[in-house]
């Protein structure tokens, strides 16, 4: 496989680090206790969702049709049927290779599909505060992106994460290198070299067969096609307060879309980049069962897609024969989104939360003559009850206030009831 020019130096660095690791392992300490060498932890997360669409609004926010997967039901919240649904259930395995590597596999399933959500290795023994991760994993950009649904404060994914990245967020195969600075203030820097398959930022089609000797503009492009970088800072604010601030960005050297119209294929080929900010603050009241605790979090992301467009007829029409080329243009889509949310423990074992979201504060789509769409909003409220620590029951009310392509707004109201149970190994409380 020909390596792409920009990946070579990074791969060389990663390879040298990996080779250095076994040498460092020579000084292995032998333990007397009966810590098992295999030490596999298994956890099972089961989720059920009751969904009720109280009133139907616009299906999707204007300006975000392309590159977004519409493989779901009838435009409602992510393929949820009115009534009972099996949500995002997970089977997780974690095992250690001595103190050198951690291996993590997370299988996600519902009543129809089983898929490998994540499968990766993480180093634990590299010197100098370095860590490598390789496999299929959720990118560490932003805050919520690397979290699984059972770790969220709301039933569904924030709009900005779903529409700028994808239905699973930024989930990719690749390698990641991170470094934790030896400073009193938590400072983490990371880069990721990813295959580039996520629909929102690195959609990939590959070469398409020519039509009547007329080549298409879409070409095969070997991976890795997406590179990301991030920094996270977490000051030490004492026992009651904790915060983390992040900045992240990425560049996809390939962003391809093909869309089938009645007589022609519409092809886009180009690149995309994104940048964002994230912040989280937690207050711990020091009372039992989370009573009086606060969590505030917010993220903003901006995405720019820069593509060439060229349509080719697959059927003769009024414009020309098969292979006829038209609509050749270069354009940019500049779009963004933000969410802010807060959760408060109003009683022992009870939490309530509010989330406000805006998608397309800037929503310029350059296709055709170019258009600036309006901003879509969503407002969500939830109440969560944890009868015992591994179980929660959450009721959520969401109001969609989406604008459509013609600038018309329509509001939809949804009610969700979520039951989530974690069995087996104790899931770690990540910050």
């Amino acid at each position, binding site marked *: 496989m020909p390596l792409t020019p*920009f*990946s070579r*130096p*990074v791969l*060389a*660095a*990663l390879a040298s*680090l990996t080779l*250095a690791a076994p040498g460092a392992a020579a000084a292995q*300490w032998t*333990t007397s*206790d009966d*810590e098992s060498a295999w030490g596999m932890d298994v956890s099972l997360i089961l989720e059920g969702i009751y969904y009720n669409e109280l009133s139907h609004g616009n299906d999707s926010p204007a300006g975000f049709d392309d590159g977004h997967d519409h493989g779901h039901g009838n435009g409602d919240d992510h393929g949820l049927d009115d009534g009972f649904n099996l949500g995002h259930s997970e089977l997780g395995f974690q095992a250690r290779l*001595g*103190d050198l590597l*951690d291996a993590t596999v997370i299988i996600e399933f519902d009543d129809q599909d089983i898929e490998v959500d994540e499968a990766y290795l993480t180093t*634990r*023994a*590299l*010197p*100098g*505060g*370095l860590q490598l991760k390789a496999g299929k994993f959720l990118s560490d950009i932003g805050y919520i992106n690397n979290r699984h649904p059972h770790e969220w404060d709301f039933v569904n994914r924030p709009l900005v994460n779903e529409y700028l990245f994808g239905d699973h967020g930024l989930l990719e195969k690749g390698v990641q*290198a991170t*470094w*934790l*600075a*030896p*400073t009193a*203030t*938590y*400072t983490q820097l990371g*880069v990721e*070299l990813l295959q580039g398959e996520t629909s929102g930022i690195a959609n990939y089609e590959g070469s398409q067969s020519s039509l009547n000797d007329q080549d298409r503009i879409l070409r095969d492009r070997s991976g890795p096609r997406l*590179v990301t*970088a991030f920094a996270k*800072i*977490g000051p*030490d604010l004492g*026992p009651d307060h*904790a915060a983390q601030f992040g900045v992240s960005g990425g*560049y996809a*050297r390939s962003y391809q879309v093909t869309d089938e119209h009645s007589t022609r294929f519409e092809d886009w*080929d180009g*690149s995309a980049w994104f940048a964002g900010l994230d912040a989280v603050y937690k207050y*711990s009241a*020091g009372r*039992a*069962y989370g009573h009086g605790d606060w969590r505030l979090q917010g993220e903003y992301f901006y995405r720019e897609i820069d593509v060439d467009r060229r349509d080719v007829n697959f059927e003769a029409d009024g414009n020309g024969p098969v292979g006829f080329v038209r609509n050749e243009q270069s354009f940019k889509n500049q779009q963004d989104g933000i969410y802010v949310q807060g959760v408060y423990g109003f009683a*022992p*074992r009870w939490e309530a939360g509010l989330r406000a979201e805006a998608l397309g504060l800037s929503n310029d789509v350059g296709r055709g003559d170019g258009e600036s769409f309006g901003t879509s909003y969503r407002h969500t409220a939830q109440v969560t009850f944890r009868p*015992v*620590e591994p*179980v929660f029951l959450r009721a959520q009310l969401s109001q969609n206030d989406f604008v459509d392509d013609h600038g018309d707004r329509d509001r939809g109201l949804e009610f969700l009831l979520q039951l989530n149970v*974690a069995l087996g190994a*104790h899931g*770690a*409380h*990540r*910050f």
Partner: protein
Amino acid sequence: MSYRKTRVRMPRALAALASLVLLGLLLLPSQAAAGLNIVATTSTLGALAREIGGDETEVRVLAPPDRDAHDLDARPSFMAALRRADMLLEIGAGLEEGWLPAAQRGARNRAINSGQPGHFRAADMIELRRSITMDGPNMGHVHEEGNPHFNTDPLRLADIALALAERMGDLRPDHAATFMERAERTAERLRDHAKALAAQVAPDQRIVVYHEDLDYLEEWLPVDIVGYLEPAPGIPPTARHLRSLVSDLEGTEGTVLYAAFQPARGAEFLERNLGWTSHAVPLDPPADSSLDGYLELMTTWAETLPRQ
């Protein structure tokens, strides 16, 4: 037009720069290895480490002593502290399992990985009491190895102090003899103080506690635990459970003890219905304590009970 060369050049330069920076960081000298930098999960372990390590160590405690050490997040500040640590002291036996593994992984510091000499797990050094969670219904929080709340047992802490000094000596052989001397003195003071306090308390005391976190008082004080405010570990007191406690204990005398961070309602119910006294007590000494802080805490526990 196909693929634009100018767009590729910038990330290539960035990628090259990033890899150079990463390689450069590898060659950074590790920080000066003068004192032993110890991070302890709880202030009880921190107190032992301070007493044994003296001026040869720097000790940082992660869990605030007035919080439930089960329920913490793997905070960024914890990872920053662990990143620079030469040694991690944990209670073990599942007490910190909800957050410490994530903090340890996030710290990217091999010295404190499980299995390394810099990782000291106190539960491995002693025999644990059985935990109720081992026998009761699985409510999602099972301490398979035993009850991890031995921070309330000075006798076990004395053994842990000796094991800790040995381990610290492995890491800093120059000071091994000093560490062991201080540990022996620490163990002696813990045992003596426990004996003295036990002699002050009236015999055959009956106590009700909130969680199984004061069980180890039975090991060194003349007390007998006759009930728990929680129906099962981790489950808050229910009205029905409290009523059945009252009917079981009606007509007897005793004391209710609970941790300062636990809700007082159940204890107050027993106080009203049984006429027992109740006390909220700290479970760990203040974060910056050395041994004296822990000895004072032992006195606080003993003084909640009627005197001889």
